[in-house]
């Protein structure tokens, strides 16, 4: 069996063994997540500054967002994090069917999330809440409200883009898992994708209260 481990098909030639490779992959993924934290961080900074400058406008603008849809999406995404974690666990235990099942579940839940976002964006468009020439907002806070909506679209759009990238990756993983690629000895791609997916969930955990629940509800 030691022979098989040395020549494991997934072992790259520049690593001594699978363990070193896995540790490298893990550290690499975490560093990528660290830079994603700073990436989203810039927008969270802009949000923080403007919310503190225009608290009333932000509260008013936030009320036009449907917190129930946002809340449902939050629950959906948290559930998808659970299914993702279960997929990783299944891989560690060598349960091929379960890996595929949970990965597909994650894809379905992620797609529901995106579907709800499409509904929400469409609604904004109808109500003239998309920043630009057609923006309309009642009251004296229209201008800072437009900043709020700029941030809303920028931040949720960037978040949605991350999910749009993640879903095909999950599908590829599901296919490879179905083909038996992942074993307890080697399932690094599933774990790493899991880390990515959980990060995307965490961003939303902050976006929900900050965008949908500003001011008294």
């Amino acid at each position: 069996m030691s022979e098989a481990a040395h020549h494991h098909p997934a072992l790259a030639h520049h690593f001594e063994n699978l363990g070193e490779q896995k540790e490298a992959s893990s550290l690499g993924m975490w560093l990528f997540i660290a830079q994603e934290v700073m990436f989203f961080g810039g927008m969270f900074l802009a949000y923080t500054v403007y919310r503190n400058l225009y608290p009333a406008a932000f509260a008013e603008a936030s009320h036009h967002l449907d917190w129930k849809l946002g809340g449902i999406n939050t629950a959906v995404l948290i559930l998808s994090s659970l299914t993702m974690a279960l997929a990783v666990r299944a891989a560690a235990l060598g349960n091929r069917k379960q890996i595929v099942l949970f990965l597909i579940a994650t894809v379905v839940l992620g797609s529901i999330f995106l579907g709800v976002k499409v509904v929400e964006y469409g609604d904004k468009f109808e109500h003239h809440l998309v920043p630009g020439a057609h923006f309309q907002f009642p009251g004296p806070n229209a201008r800072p409200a437009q900043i709020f909506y700029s941030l809303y679209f920028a931040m949720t759009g960037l978040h949605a883009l991350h999910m749009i990238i993640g879903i095909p990756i999950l599908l590829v993983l599901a296919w490879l898992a179905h083909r038996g690629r992942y074993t307890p000895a080697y399932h690094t791609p599933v774990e790493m994708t899991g880390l990515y997916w959980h990060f995307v969930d965490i961003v939303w955990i902050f976006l929900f209260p900050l965008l949908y629940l500003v001011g008294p509800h």
Partner: protein
Amino acid sequence: MTTTTSPLIPAAAPRQRTHYLNANYGVLSWLLTTDHKRIAILYLVTISAMFFLGGSFAVAIRLELVTPAGDLFQSETYNKLFTMHGIVMVFFFLIPSIPAVLGNFLIPLMIGARDLAFPKLNLASWYIFVFGALFSLYAIVNGGVDTGWTFYPPYSTSFSNTQVLAAGLGIFITGFSSILTGLNFIVTIHKMRAPGLTWFRLPLFVWAHYATSLIMVLGTPVIAVTILMVALERTLHLGIFDPALGGDPVLFQHLFWFYSHPAVYIMILPAMGVISEVVTCFSRKRIFGYEVIAASSMAIAIFGFLVWGHHLFPAGQSTYAGVVFSLLSYLVAIPSAIKVFNWTATMYKGSIKLDTPMLYAIGFLGLFTIGGLTGLFVAAVGVDIHVHDTYFVVAHFHYIMVGGAIMGYLGGLHFWWPKISGRLYPEMWARVAAVIVFVGFNLTFFPQFILGYLGMPRRYHAYTEEFQVLNVMSSAGASILGVGYLLPMFYFAWSMRYGAPAPANPWGATGLEWQTPSPPVTENFPVQPVVVDEAYEYAKGREVTVV
């Protein structure tokens, strides 16, 4: 020049044995390579091209500034020239230069590894870099950008009708090349060191790149998202910085400089790493204060993130914040100064050899010191109010970036050229070029300190009569500097065909990279080395042992 040849590795002509350069032939073997050494060469070619592109804008600028009147270019054109000089030089030359070329080539060799942790990601980083560069080239060819390399809104978001979007996208894309390179280096250094190579036996070049990589990974995403927000404002009218909506342009400046200040440490730390290697080798002496230099590299990286507000002194930032940033800016100078002391102490009572790499290193010591000290001038809020946006600042940063970083890059290229190419460059020509660079550089930029102090503003294509003499000196210096930069192009190329074959260790230096043949084989080390010595064991007559 004495050459120390390891008895086990004969100085055979590079063509007679297989190594990374001749292991495979054909364009695809280069474009699809995952060998870190070949990728380093790919970067060398691309960033050299970008250097001369950025340099050509500098030529245009210095030509215009020979006369007080704005008679060579219209002011709008001149705005584009200095903008694109800055963008190309900062994002497409300086930031990648040493890490992407020398770091990529040397880090696996220095730690006894076969490659970086993620070789395919390394290749992808190069393609991402090229893709970003192409966007910028598109911007340049289609009218250019005139916002200054700093892209300040509301001009960049609401008023400029130049290729802001394309240029911004180019920088955004290339930023990911930087992030992924840094990520690759950090993982490699943590996880792939040879047995016996503890952290405090690492070459200081590796420490420098580790610190640089931290900045690349944590800082670059901030400018990426900032440029993204500018792009969204320009295209989708998501007015995040728009004052008409109550937005704050100074918020952009905070975000921009949060990265762009640490970025200058991305540019200088690797050069400092080169200097550490060169000074110790050409003084034949263990470096003075190894642990302190390593710690200083980390301190510079971390402290470098705390001082961005010194770019915002006159911008409307609060006075309180200004004072805090000023104090922190003084503190960040300390680790840099410590390094200069340590390098000097290394040379003290050393056996100095003035080969070309050492000429660049000594030049670095002087010029970086001047650049760093003038940084302290501008770090004082009271002084900065007067010299902000004048040529004083321009001179300050060129002393560090050109007198410091580029000298470090050239010194490193010369030092490791035998290892990279398997050939020796012509030493006499190289020394001449180094002296020309030094003279040309000082003639170009020292007058600019005086110009700035006397009040000549930057980014103006016309100036008043009294500044002409100094401007002419500066432009004359630039032409000399240009000659100094062109010479290595010629003799490096010449050496590829006609240079003497290089032995494994022409300089008698310590370090695992010198224990491989010149050039190395693709896998670097057929057998993984085990390290038993401390770093820089230059004690007299003692061979560095590698088991």
